[in-house]
């Protein structure tokens, strides 16, 4: 019996265990891997996509999906690069408001017109990518690769500052994770999200304002994608139409690795964060082992498929035993 319980816990926390395991093995092979600097760099790498990750976790628990987050992030980074000429605050506001607006449009289309979210956000993904291309091409110097850069050094301080040696990017992500995990677990809004994702019709009969919950979640995801765009332009000082094309796939993979079910109503933000952490650790491993970065993609894909199969076999066994 006891053995079974150990196995159950291991099965429950397999992603975290895997991340720790990779970390331990890499730490033995390369002592620098577990050093402060490397851990910081792992966290910095996942922090921008991590901000989007929070929004997508909310949406997936709600039973919806957003493919446009990458394009929204690219658009918002372009907006904040344009806006920062008029001051840091204008730059930040331009990015955030654009993201919020895109999220609200997504939400209204999905909820009011009752279209599948994957179809709406696919359209928005393509549309916004086109808009970013038009904007950056018209502003970029001729002959380049159509990317634009900002000129306000104050704007870059947002991400270039550190507190006790920890970059602000990590602090922002940690703060957001804490706030949104609290909101999801301990507030009415969070509970409504679980309820709506679990059973939309039943939630409507239970007098939950299902429509406004769903629109708010889309707006929130847009706003967070906007924030990711602002952070991106501050950190790397670039906006281009090629940014963000892989983001939805990466982030959705991380959320799913973190044990959130696409059918909605299940999962928790902090547990899902383990999935993102695993992505970061694998990323750093790839860099340290000096294998091609494409191997990262391959490993994530293989991992996702293996996980699904293992889960599938386990669920089948439980059902028929």
């Amino acid at each position, binding site marked *: 019996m006891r053995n079974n319980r150990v196995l159950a816990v291991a099965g429950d926390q397999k992603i975290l265990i895997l991340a720790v395991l990779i970390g331990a093995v890499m730490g033995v092979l390369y002592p620098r891997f577990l050093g402060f600097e490397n851990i910081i760099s792992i966290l910095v790498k996942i922090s921008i996509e991590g901000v989007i990750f929070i929004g997508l976790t909310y949406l997936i628990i709600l039973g919806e999906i957003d493919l446009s987050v990458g394009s929204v992030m690219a658009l918002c980074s372009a907006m904040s690069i344009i806006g920062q000429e008029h001051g840091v605050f204008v730059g930040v506001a331009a990015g955030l408001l654009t993201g919020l607006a895109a999220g609200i449009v997504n939400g209204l*289309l999905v909820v009011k017109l009752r279209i599948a979210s994957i179809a709406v956000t696919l359209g928005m993904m*393509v549309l916004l990518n*086109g808009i970013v291309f*038009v904007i950056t091409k018209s502003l970029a110097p001729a002959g380049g690769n159509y990317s634009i850069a900002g000129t306000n050094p104050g704007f870059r301080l947002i991400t270039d500052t550190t507190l006790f040696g920890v970059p602000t990017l990590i602090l922002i992500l940690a703060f957001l994770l804490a706030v949104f995990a609290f909101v999801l677990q301990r507030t009415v809004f969070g509970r409504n999200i679980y309820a709506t994702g679990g059973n939309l019709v039943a939630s409507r009969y239970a007098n939950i304002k299902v429509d406004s919950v769903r629109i708010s979640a889309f707006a929130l995801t847009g706003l967070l994608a906007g924030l990711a765009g602002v952070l991106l332009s501050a950190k790397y000082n670039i906006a281009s*139409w090629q940014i963000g094309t892989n983001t939805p796939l990466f982030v959705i993979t991380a959320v799913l690795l973190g044990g959130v079910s696409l059918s909605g109503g299940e999962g928790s933000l902090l547990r899902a964060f383990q999935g993102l952490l695993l992505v970061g650790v694998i990323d750093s491993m790839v860099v340290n082992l000096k294998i091609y970065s494409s*191997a990262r*993609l391959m490993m994530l894909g293989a991992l996702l498929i293996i996980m699904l199969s293992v889960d599938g076999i386990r669920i089948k066994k439980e059902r028929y035993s």
Partner: protein
Amino acid sequence: MRNDAVPTGKGAWPRVSLVRFLRGNTQLLILILLVVVFSILFPAFISRKNLINILKQSTVISLASCGLALVVIGGNLDLSVGALLSLTLGISLSLSGIHPLLALFVPLLLGVGLGMLNGTIVSRFEVNSIIVTLGSLSLVSGFVQFYRQGNIIMGLPGTILTQFVDLTVFSIPSYVLFYVLMAVVCGLLLSRTTYGRKLRLIGVNREAALVGGINVRRVTTIAFVICSTMVALAAIIQGARLLQGSTNTGDGLEFDALTALLIGGVSLRGGKGSILNAMIGVLLLAVIINALTLLNVPFEWRNIAKGILILIAVSTDALVGRRNEK
């Protein structure tokens, strides 16, 4: 009218009158309307050369959309088609130097294999197909980049494959005829066979299909296998046509094919639509892109047009659907 959820036996086909047919196929009406308008506006549009060009450029997306339509009508989604195209294109090109038959059969086998993998995991473990194919997308495209490092791959001219591709019938290239033939085959499979009816029933109501004793596992897996095989065929043809390809040739094909399906009137919720809808969607997309080129609209506006098209298509579909409900 072919959009009827489930055809119920032989006598159930409605009597075909042209007006009724067009009313049931708004997208076809729009396509005809656009072709007429564009022919009046730009004489260059209706030229034989331009029309054949449109057909030529639609090769890959037609084959992919036909295959994907089967998967989507069966209630699933396959996001791995773009990555599979890059993979099979690269392999077909590199093998064409060794033996043309290898360049034909190895990609086809890979297609069947990936389809089996996707279909088996989706139907056996009952996992959402988006997650499964997202995984195989990452797996395959990571492998492609790993294996080719972004280089251009050249093919060998003068093989039996390139000879086939160079054939023309009344100046229509053989591969255009080939994909039209494949579309007809898929269409017949969907509308005229028991397999097609089972697939559509699964798309409409999976539980009912299970209770009704349909082998959901097998039917779903076959749909995935057909889809991947069609993509492999597209890659072989594309390789023989262009004799070169790179690791990112297939990037975004899944979204382009989904766009074509949505514009053509295949619902992503499953069960609704036909291969005719898919092909109309492909042509609508191609005609509009072609008109943008003739209008000298800069390249970067193309995605804006595509995005607006998708949003209009899904919104009108939702609005019309809601009106019919009342």
